[in-house]
C-alpha cells in the first residue's frame, strides 16, 4: 500500500443458539448429515394455515448473550416479517426482528480495545438448496432441503469499530469463547453454528468519512475470515489507487480460489417490506426474568482470565487458554482447590488434552503424584490413560501397579553404567563437547529404566560421564 490506509470493519455474526427445537415449531434440530427433509413439520415447511410459536429457550439464549455483551434490553420486543421470495424460504418471508430487537448498545472488549455492539436479535434460518451438478447456472435440477429452515439464529451486529483482519479474527474468537462460556451456543463454525460476515471499507488515514463497504459471505473458519479480509482490503485499496471506486455490494469468499467475488450489488438489493409479524404478539421482557438470567450468567471469560493470572499467578497465555473453555477453567480451579499446584495443573490441562476429561479430584491426584516426585511424567501419562479407561483413581493405579519413581542414585548406578557402556559413540561425542549427545543417552536410560527419576538420573549420568 503506497499510502497509509485505514481499514474499517463491522461484523455481522449469525449464531445458532443452543436449543433442542426450532425457533417457531417443535421440530428437533437436525444433526449434521441428516437425510434431507427429515427434521421438518407443517410449520417449518410453511404449509398453508400454520402459525409460529416462539421458542423460549432461544429467547433466553439471546437474552443471556445480550446480557454478557452488556446490551440494553427493552421492556418489549417484537418480531417482524422480512419479505422476499426464494425456494429455500418456504413462507416467502423470514421471521426476524427489525426496529425493536431483543437488545441494543452493548460492547465486547477485545485485547483492550472496545468493539461496540449495535444489536443482538433473533430470527430463523432458511433451508438449503442442493443443485444437481455443482454449479447453479448449469444445474439441471435443484432440490430444497428444509432441515435447517426455522432453526433459531441470533444475529450479533457490531459497530464499525474494528481496524484490521487481526482484530476481526480476535473479535470473532472472543465472541465464540463468550458464547460457549455462557452456554448460549456451541458456536462451531464448521458445523454452521456460527457464521461471520464482515463489512469492510477502507479510507485514507485521517479521513473522517467512511468509504463504500462490501459485505463478505461464505466464510467458514477464523483463518478464512482473516484471509478474506486481507484479500478484500487489498482489492479495495488497489482499486482506488488505480483510479477506480469501490461499489457497495455483497461478495462471496471462495476458499478454493482464495479470493472474493461479486454476488449482489446494491442496486439488486431487495425491498424487504418489513412489517410487524401479526402472528406473534409483542413479547414482554419481564425485568425479574432478565435479572434471573443475569444472575445465572457464569463468570465471563475476560474476567476469569484476569482472575486466573491474579489469583494463581498463571502466565497470561496459560490463563487465556484455560479461560477460553469454561469446563477447562472449572477443572483447573477444582483441581487447584484439591491441593494441586497451579502452574503444574495448567500445564497438564494445556499439554495433555485427555487430562481435560478427568474429574478435578483425579487431575489433582495425578498432578500431585508427579510434582511430589512419586512418579515421573511418563508414568503420569500411563496413569492418566488407565484412570480414564477404568475410572480408578490415579493413586489407586499407582499402588496397584506398584509404580514408583526410582530416585535413589545408588539403585540407578548400575543401569547408568550400562547405558554408558552400550553407547560408546554418544559417550565420545559428549566428552568431545557435544552436549546434545546427552539426550540420546537419557533416551536410552528411560527405555532401560522407565521408572527412573529423570532429574536424579540426569545428574548421575553427568557425574559418571565426567569421572
Amino acid at each position, binding site marked *: 500500500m503506497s499510502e497509509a490506509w485505514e481499514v474499517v470493519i463491522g461484523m455481522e455474526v449469525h449464531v445458532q443458539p443452543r436449543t433442542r427445537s426450532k425457533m417457531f415449531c417443535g421440530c428437533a434440530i437436525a444433526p449434521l448429515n441428516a437425510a434431507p427433509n427429515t427434521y421438518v413439520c407443517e410449520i417449518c415447511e410453511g*404449509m398453508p*394455515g400454520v402459525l409460529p410459536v416462539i421458542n423460549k429457550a432461544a429467547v433466553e439464549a439471546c437474552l443471556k448473550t445480550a446480557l454478557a455483551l452488556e446490551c440494553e434490553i427493552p421492556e418489549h420486543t417484537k418480531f417482524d416479517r422480512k419479505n422476499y421470495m426464494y425456494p429455500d424460504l*418456504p413462507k416467502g418471508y423470514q421471521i426476524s426482528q427489525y426496529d425493536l430487537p431483543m437488545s441494543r448498545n452493548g460492547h465486547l472488549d477485545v485485547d483492550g480495545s472496545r468493539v461496540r455492539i449495535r444489536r443482538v436479535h433473533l430470527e430463523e434460518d432458511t433451508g438449503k438448496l442442493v443443485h444437481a451438478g455443482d454449479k447453479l447456472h448449469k444445474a439441471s435440477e435443484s432440490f430444497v432441503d428444509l432441515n435447517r429452515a426455522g432453526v433459531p439464529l441470533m444475529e450479533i451486529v457490531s459497530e464499525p469499530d474494528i481496524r484490521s483482519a487481526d482484530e476481526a479474527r480476535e473479535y470473532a474468537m472472543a465472541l465464540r469463547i463468550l458464547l460457549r462460556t455462557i452456554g448460549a451456543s456451541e458456536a462451531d463454525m464448521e458445523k454452521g453454528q456460527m457464521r461471520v460476515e464482515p463489512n469492510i471499507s477502507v479510507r485514507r488515514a485521517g479521513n473522517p468519512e467512511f468509504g463504500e463497504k462490501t459485505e463478505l459471505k461464505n466464510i467458514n473458519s477464523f483463518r478464512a475470515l482473516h484471509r478474506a479480509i486481507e484479500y478484500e482490503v487489498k482489492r479495495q485499496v488497489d482499486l482506488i489507487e488505480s483510479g477506480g471506486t469501490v461499489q457497495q455490494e455483497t461478495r462471496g469468499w471462495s476458499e478454493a480460489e482464495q479470493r472474493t467475488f461479486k454476488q449482489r450489488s446494491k442496486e439488486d438489493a431487495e425491498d424487504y417490506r418489513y412489517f410487524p409479524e*401479526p*402472528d406473534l404478539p409483542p413479547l414482554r421482557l419481564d425485568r425479574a426474568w432478565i435479572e434471573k438470567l443475569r444472575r445465572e450468567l457464569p463468570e465471563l471469560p475476560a474476567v476469569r482470565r484476569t482472575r486466573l493470572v491474579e489469583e494463581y499467578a498463571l502466565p497470561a497465555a496459560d490463563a487465556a487458554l484455560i479461560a477460553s473453555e469454561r469446563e477447562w477453567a472449572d477443572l483447573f480451579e477444582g483441581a487447584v482447590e484439591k491441593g494441586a499446584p497451579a502452574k503444574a495443573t495448567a500445564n497438564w490441562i494445556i499439554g495433555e488434552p485427555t487430562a481435560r476429561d478427568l474429574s478435578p479430584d483425579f487431575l489433582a491426584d495425578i498432578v500431585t503424584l508427579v510434582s511430589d516426585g512419586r512418579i515421573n511424567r511418563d508414568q503420569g501419562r500411563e496413569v492418566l490413560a488407565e484412570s480414564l479407561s477404568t475410572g480408578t483413581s490415579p493413586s489407586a493405579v499407582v499402588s496397584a501397579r506398584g509404580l514408583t519413581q526410582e530416585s535413589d542414585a545408588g539403585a540407578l548406578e548400575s543401569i547408568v553404567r550400562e547405558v554408558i557402556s552400550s553407547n560408546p559413540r554418544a559417550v565420545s561425542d559428549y566428552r568431545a563437547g557435544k552436549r546434545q549427545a546427552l539426550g540420546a543417552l537419557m533416551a536410552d536410560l528411560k527405555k532401560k529404566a522407565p521408572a527412573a527419576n529423570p532429574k536424579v538420573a540426569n545428574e548421575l549420568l553427568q557425574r559418571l560421564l565426567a569421572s
Partner: protein
Amino acid sequence: MDLTRLTIGELADLLRAHETSAQELLGLHLERIDDADGDVKAFLRLTPQLAAEQARAADRALKEGTAGPLTGIPMAVKDVLCLSGVETTAGSKILRGFRPPYTGTAVQRLIDAGAVVLGVTNCDEFAMGSSTENSGYFATHNPWGLDRVPGGSSGGSAAAVAAGESVFSLGTDTGGSIRQPAALCGVVGMKPTYGRVSRYGLIAFASSLDQIGPFTRSVEDCAVVLETMAGHDPLDATCADRPNDVRRGLDAGVRGMRLGVPKEYFDVEGMEPGVKQSVQRALRMLEASGAELVDVSLPHTDYGLAAYYIIAPAECSSNLARFDGVKYGMSDQDAQNITEAYMNTRRRGFGSEVRRRVMLGTYALSSGYYDAYYLKAQKVRTLIKRDFDEAFEKCDAIVSATSPTVAFPLGAKTQDPLSMYLCDVLTLGGNLAGLPGISVPCGMSNGLPVGLQVLAPQWREDTALRVARAYEVASGMRVEPALV
C-alpha cells in the same frame, strides 16, 4: 318432520331419544345436498366416506351414552380450513389438489365433539370478496333467490345452512365474511373476539383480522358451536388463555341493558331503506323487551374502509407469498428460471381480486410508502378501537344493520371493486377493533333476508349472544331453510 330444517339443539334431543341416528341425519343431508346443491352450489367437495365413519362413531357414542351436544350433527367447513387428507384450496386454483397433512384446531375440536363433516364449502378466493363470485371454481347462489349472491366470502357455508344442506357450518371473518353472508342468507353468523378461537389451520388472508366462527339456525346453536371451538391453543400465539364463558347469561334477556345505536352506521353510503326499516323495527322490539337505546358515535367510521384496505392487503401480500409453486399446489414447469416460474404460477393460479390485493399490499409496505400507508392505517385502526372503547362506556353492546343491502344480483358488483368493498362497511370496524359480532335475521326486505348486527366489547361474546338471543325470543324468529 323434515330433519333438515331443525336446529342443533332440536336434533340433539332427537338423537339422544334415539328417534333418529347420526347415520340417518347424514343420509338425509346428503340427499338434501343432492336435491338442492345443483342450484345453490354451496359445496366445492363432499366427504361422504369421512362423514360415514364419523356418523358411525357418533352413533356408537349415542348408544354408549357418551354423546355431547354436537355428536352426530352434520357440519360443513369453509374451504380455507385445513382438514387432514381432504383437498383444501382456499377457493383458489393455485391450491388445486392440495391435501393438508394436518387438521386445524377449531375443526378438530368440533370433530372431537362428534360433529360429522359433510364437505368443504365454496368461498371467495383466499376469502377475498363479499359475494363468493371470486371463487376460483364457481359462484354460489343465494337459496332465497338463485339469481342473487349469498354474500361472502363465506358464501358457501352460509348458503349451505340456509338451504338445509347442513345443520351448521364454519366460516371465517376478516372484514365481515361471516356476518354479511349470514345476513344475506337469513341465518345466524358470528365472528368471535380476535383471539377467542385458534387460527391454527386457517389459511390466512389477513392474520391480525381473521377469525373463525359459526353459521347456525339459532343463537343457542351459535353459542354451542363457539363454545366447543373456543379456548387456548398452544399452536396459536394470538389465541388467548381466557375463561370459556361465551354462554354466560344467554337467556337472561336485555332488561336494563343499554344498546348503543351509532348514527354513522345508519347513514352509510348505499343503505337501503328496507334494511334500515327492518333494523329499526328490531331495535324497537329490543326496547320493548326492556333494553335502553342510547345514541353513540363512531366518528372514524368513514376512515375504516380505507384503513382496512391497506392493512388487509398488506398482510395478504405477505401471507400469500408461500404460494410459489415450489412445495404444493399449482406449479409452472416450463419456466426458464425461478422468477419466471413464480410469475407464471402466480399469474395463472391467482384470480384478479387476489392479484389486485397482493399488489395493493406490496405497494403499501414498500420502502418510501410504508409510513404514508401501512403506518397511517395502523394509526387509524387505533382511533377506531378508541371510538369503540368510548362508545362502550355508554352502552353494553352496539346494534346496527349487518349489511347496508340485501342480497344483490349475481354480477352486479363484479366490475366495480369499490362498490363490492362497501358491502363490509358496517362489519369491518369489528375486525379492526378485534370485537365479537353476531348477525341474526331480522325480517325481510323485498323478499330477501335482512341481518341485525350486535357488536360487543372484546371477550364479551356472552353479551352479543344474549342480545341476539333476546331478539330471537322477542321476535319469535325461526330460521327456515329456503328453497324448499
